[in-house]
């Protein structure tokens, strides 16, 4: 107890975040296990985890590092395709689901981190708008490459092509694993809600600890004032790359989770295009740039909301957009902020003044 009280304010806040996630997850898990949850909601559990991880990952890049990336769906795509490819390939060789999933996770995250690092090298030399545009381009490149990739397997090993399945030159008993635009079909459904929650917590712990570390302070110093940070001897390139690669790797986790939740994985502009990247950015901005806990709840809310609006039929996406605008205004418009401050102050003042009167 004493230890708890001694804890710094930030770590207390972090533990509160973990506890909130755990409690919500526990309630959802129990409801699902006892059959008190609708099929829709129980089907949404894993996607919510994936998008929460994505939002937290992007928040590391946008909020902590201060560099705007609109290509994070691309890193998710790398994680998804690498891990799904591995799981499909090893489905018969490694029959135990959790071992296969763990290996797929390590591979998927590793590749996303690698791609993040490689893209980061040229991209992080840019600033602001330029960086945003280049990340957008890289995200689209990843998506499009994934959409024309053909990989097959026969007794001679793996065959690759960027043209079509015929040019793979497979033997008669060969199997096409990645089929261009049709993607990967028949990925084993290895992810579940428990794994999802564990991965959300791992992501949160990684990001929170990074932020409160020496490296994290260096990263935030770069965000706040590049010249000042450089003048005190912080290695700008190194810390930018660290933050960007970790952010890409965490997006990879989300991709792995996403790919193992569905039976089919296709690279379309719907799931890995820039629309998705902007959607993740919306989660981050709505939750508050740099606010990790906010990202978690904004992502969960915005994934579930369009499904809850299904009763509106054709007006569903229209109303969803309107709600987004209203919430965004309420959260960030200066006059709305001032209004909230006023209400808060009034609410705080009233008990104070009554106290005085009593005294």
């Amino acid at each position, binding site marked *: 107890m004493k230890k708890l009280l001694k804890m710094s304010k930030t770590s207390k806040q972090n533990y509160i975040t973990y506890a909130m996630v755990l409690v919500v997850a526990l309630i959802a898990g129990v409801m699902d296990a006892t059959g008190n949850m*609708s*099929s*829709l909601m*129980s*089907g*949404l559990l894993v*996607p919510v985890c994936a998008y929460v991880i994505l939002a937290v990952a992007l928040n590391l890049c*946008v909020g902590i590092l*201060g*560099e*705007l990336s*609109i290509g994070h769906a691309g890193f998710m795509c790398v994680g998804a395709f690498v891990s799904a490819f591995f799981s499909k390939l090893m489905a018969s060789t490694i029959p135990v689901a959790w071992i296969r999933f763990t290996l797929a996770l390590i591979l998927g995250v590793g590749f996303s981190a690698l791609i993040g690092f490689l893209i980061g090298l040229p991209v992080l030399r840019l*600033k*602001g*708008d330029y960086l945003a545009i280049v990340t957008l381009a890289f995200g689209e490149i990843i998506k*499009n490459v994934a*959409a*024309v990739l053909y990989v097959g397997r026969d007794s001679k090993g793996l065959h690759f092509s960027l043209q*079509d*399945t*015929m040019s793979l030159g497979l033997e008669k008993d060969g199997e096409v694993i990645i089929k*261009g*635009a*049709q*993607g990967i*079909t*028949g990925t084993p*459904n290895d992810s579940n809600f428990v794994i999802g929650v564990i991965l959300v917590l791992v992501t949160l712990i990684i990001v929170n600890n990074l932020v409160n570390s020496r490296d994290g302070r260096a990263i935030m110093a770069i*965000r*706040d004032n590049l010249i000042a940070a450089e003048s005190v001897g912080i290695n700008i390139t190194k810390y930018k790359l660290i933050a960007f690669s970790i952010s890409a790797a965490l997006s990879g986790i989300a991709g792995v989770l*996403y790919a193992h*939740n*569905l*039976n*089919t*994985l*296709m690279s*379309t*502009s*719907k*799931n890995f295009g820039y*629309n998705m990247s*902007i*959607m993740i*950015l*919306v989660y981050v*901005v709505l939750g508050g*740039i740099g606010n990790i806990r906010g990202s978690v709840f904004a992502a969960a809310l915005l994934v579930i909301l369009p*499904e809850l609006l*299904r*009763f509106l*039929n*054709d*007006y569903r*996406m*229209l109303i*969803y*957009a309107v709600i*987004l605008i209203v919430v*965004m205004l309420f959260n960030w418009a200066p006059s709305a902020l001032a209004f909230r401050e006023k209400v808060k102050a009034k609410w705080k003042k009233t008990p104070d003044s009554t106290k005085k009167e009593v005294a």
Partner: protein
Amino acid sequence: MKSVVKKVVSLALVAGMALSSVACGNSNTATTSNSGSATNTTSDALVWKIGSTGPLTGGAAVYGTNVVNSAKLACDEINAAGGINGYQIEFNGQDDEADAEKAVNAYNTLKDWGMQLFVGTTTSGACVATVAKTSADNMFQVTPSASSTDVVNGNTNVYQICFTDPNQGIASAQYIGENALATKVAVIYDSSDVYSTGIYEKFAEEAANQSFEIVSVGAFTADNKTDFSVQLQDAKNNGADLVFLPIYYNEAALILNQAKTLGYDVQFFGCDGLDGILSVENFDKSLAEGVLLLTPFVATSTDEKTVAFVEAYKKAYNGEVPNQFGADAYDAVYLLKAMIESGNLTPDMSTSDICEALKKEIVKISFDGVTGAAMTWVESGEVSKSPKAMVIKNGEYVPFEK
């Protein structure tokens, strides 16, 4: 630094909003459907609950709208005629945005609603994802238009109304070969589309056994589908005397237009995706003169069933003409009706029992619909029906006779 980030963020967000509201705008003009509404429900009486999903918003909305509208139309007609085995039908159509994840959400929504029979999913990619779920739930699924073989592979509860893509490719190659339509063939296909690549691959395989050779292959993707002069020029230079177009009609209309500009007069040959080319806005119908297509359905056919369906659809949905997707969905609902009647099923049976009973019925049935006569199904889920070769003459589709 921070202010720049903020500026760009707000710009990006505005763009996002604008995009999403544009998408909505599209859907609202394109769809007049009343998805989600129940048709003629009698209170607390037993009803059949039939659900369907398709993209009602976004770029593929025209397909989903046709499927959901036609399925609803069929349900309304059946209800007006007294229902199935005396029980009325409730219909619910959900939006899946042609996305695997959203399709699973839409399916789960329908399951919560109490769906017993599933007429979906419209698009192949999304369908593969829902098939995994219906298979686990043992729910009977008839997909009107998901034509990939992955949809029916490895399960026993899913059946297709449309041809599988490979079948279309093989049938097209055989038709061209057997009727000696050409000796040198060029292909232009959409490499980012499951339907188009599926047909092309089997077409190329079967072409090896036929009397013609493929001299030029031009691919394009969904992001780059307005200028086809490179592909057409390549076909022309290689002396192709027939161009095979396993694509949808919107791109085909552009290709025909650009071929004329290039002065390339050649025989065009397509699959069922070309149905609808005559109703493209501002399209010069004379360009399509002589185009051959292999399709199970044409809206202008004088076949009694087709005329009735097209008229009813026009009446219900502001004069719009249904396409082949809609016709498939319409057949799907009537197929369910025919099987339920012959199997003497009632809606108080469990979903799984209904599925088991229907599995036994579907391999026995011979069904006459708007997309073909005497259609039969095999246990693996594929349909067997014969495509009709049609040719466009004087701005009309007429049966092709060599």
